[in-house]
């Protein structure tokens, strides 16, 4: 069971990374970040079956943080969209040096 679970979560994580690196739409990038988080969650759960339930506790923690992050992150995306009428990440570069 364990190697399969690790393999699936590695594939999920890689899909998330590629999505973050290649996509320009802020919402999709956001979703890919969530995908990466959940890939990690899957690993935690898989390991919890072998090494005890500490991993399950971590998963709850990560989900809580992800929920908070989703609230804040989406709020930022929406606020930005209201001002600039775009969610394209390449157009958002106000902090460049």
């Amino acid at each position: 069971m364990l190697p399969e679970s690790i393999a699936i979560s590695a594939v999920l994580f890689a899909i998330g990374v590629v999505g973050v690196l290649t996509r320009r739409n802020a919402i999709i990038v956001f979703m890919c970040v969530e995908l990466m988080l959940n890939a990690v969650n899957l690993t935690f759960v898989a390991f919890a079956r072998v090494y005890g339930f500490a991993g399950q506790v971590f998963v709850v923690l990560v989900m809580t943080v992800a929920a908070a992050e989703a609230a804040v992150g989406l709020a930022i995306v929406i606020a930005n969209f209201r001002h600039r009428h775009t969610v394209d990440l390449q157009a958002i570069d106000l902090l460049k040096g």
Partner: protein
Amino acid sequence: MQNYIWAVPLLPLLGFVINGALSLFGAVHLGPADPSLPHEAREVALDHDPAEHGAPTRPRFYTAVTIIGCLVVALAFALGVAIFVEMVQSGQTQPFVQTYFPWMPVGDLQINAALQVDQLSILMVLVITGIGTLIHIFSVGYMGDDPGYARYFAYLNLFVFFMLVLVLGANYPILFVGWEGVGLCSYLLIGFWFSETVNADAGKKAFIVNRIGDYGLLMAMFLMFANFKTLDYTGVTAAAGNLTAGGPLATTICLFLFLACTGKSAQIPLYVWLPDAMAGPTPVSALIHAATMVTAGVYLVVRSAALFALSPVAGLTICVVGAATALLAATIALKQWDIKKVLAYSTVSQLGFMFVAVGCGGYVAGMFHLVTHAFFKALLFLGAGSVIYALHAAYHETHNHADAQDMRNMGGLRHYMPWTWILMWIATLAISGIPLFAGFFSKDEVMGTLFDRAQDSTLRDAHWLGIPGGLLLYTLYGIMLFAAFLTAIYMTRMMLYTFHGPNRSGDDERPLLREAPWIMTGPLVVLGVLSATGGFLNLPPFFPLFGAPINLLKNWLDPVVGPAIIRTTHGVAVETDPTLGVTLGVIAGSIGVLGILLAVIRIKTTEVGNAVPEPAIERVLEHRYYVDELYDRIFVRPLVALSRTVLWKGVDGMIDGAVNAVAWLGRAVSRAGAAIQSGQVGTYAWVLVLGVLAVLGAFSLFLYA
């Protein structure tokens, strides 16, 4: 009383502080007295209304500045006299040195702020404060209408302070402070009317030319410290006793000291600033550029007599330069038309006389001529000041822009200014060396000393550039006689053009010419008496006049310069042979009389202004041998060109380039850094992922491999 010596220089300093404050306060512009006046009316009120000439407006704080300015110097003089009297009564021979605080304690170098009272310094104090007081009083009249009245007196007080520091200091650095200070005051006062470029330039010229001389003084001090480990007069004098006579060290130090003297005392090659210094107010010319500051070089040589006595070569150099200066300046003075320029070149020439005296070891003769010269040259300058004042007032009233200093605009002034006329003739007779006047005795002593040294002294035995010293000194004696002859001629010429013959000032101005007020003629009378009787200071033994005491100054200065003189004369005190002394005196006296007679016969005052073609030699003299032009070509222009090309474009370019390169480098680095921060989240993510991969890869390779 000597414990109060600190008060002598500090009193004029106090005057400077108060007058300076009043000057600053008085310069505050309070606006027109009545702002409601229409603009045109105000203009008229400010302009020189002929009707207002009766009551000239006094500058602000006129009374306070007058009282403070004159009183501090007079008090310093009184204190000086008290100390002098006490010294005469006690008959002390050791110098009185008072140390106040350590000034520069650096390792071996121990320099104290200390004052020294001895026969030489108190003599200088009396001359400076005595004549200074008279000139301050004269200035009250001369500068009375000037808006910068308080500033003028502040500078003049400051000058007296620095001059007193110069002569009272107990070591060379203190002397140097005074030396630089009087240079500063000289600069400030030459450019007193700085709104005209010519005056400001003259001040700058004096300052810059003197810098060259200061280099000599600094080098001499470095050498003294390196070899003697002290800069106190007492220490240097003691150390000089252990030095080999005629050695290269003594000669080098002496020549460097003399370089300083050529700057401050206007000798060849650095004399060019003094004639230009006449741009300042005339009392300044009298005090600074005739009586006191320019004689500082003579004082320096006499002060360092112990060193100069060791170096016959340096002594001969001084004699040659002094004689050359005396002759050169005297010839130039023959053809000048500006009354102050005549006196300026006369001063340069007379300073040459003093240097010939101190150069050949006649320190008493040099100091004697310094003192008498201070009397009669101050009188001549102040007299010229009276003349200029009268002429200027007349031209001012008639709105004529003629030159009030040009002798071609004078003539026949004896009818209008009898006092000035008589007094200036006294000074002229004194400077020409007419028997019984002050200048006769001092100049005769200079010449007599020169003759004595030519007969037997260390100088006679030395060689100067291969010329035997004896031959050289006899030649110089002849040159000095000729210079004295020229002195009588140019002074008589000046008197004739100024006071005799027809008046050339203009028909409108003639009725307006009048004698200066008493506050100006008063000091002239005092100086006239001194010029006539100054010779009694040091009557030669073979000329006992009315049974007056002889050799007063010689005996007085003996504790200071006696050992040095003895050293120059092979260890024996030379007494001039009476027959020879009288012969030399007769020669010197008749030279003066001859010069005056020749001038009176040859100069036709009625022919002034006729456009007669002048011989080439006269044109050369009138243009001062083109020395200024020569210096301009040789030194000034190449220096300016060099600064423009090499320093400005070259060295400056390199320094600027280095500085700019550093700035450019910083900017380039920051640009590169800024480019990394693109603001693109995607890029950041890429870098992050690549970084993680690199770290993980490194771990896999090194940790598990």
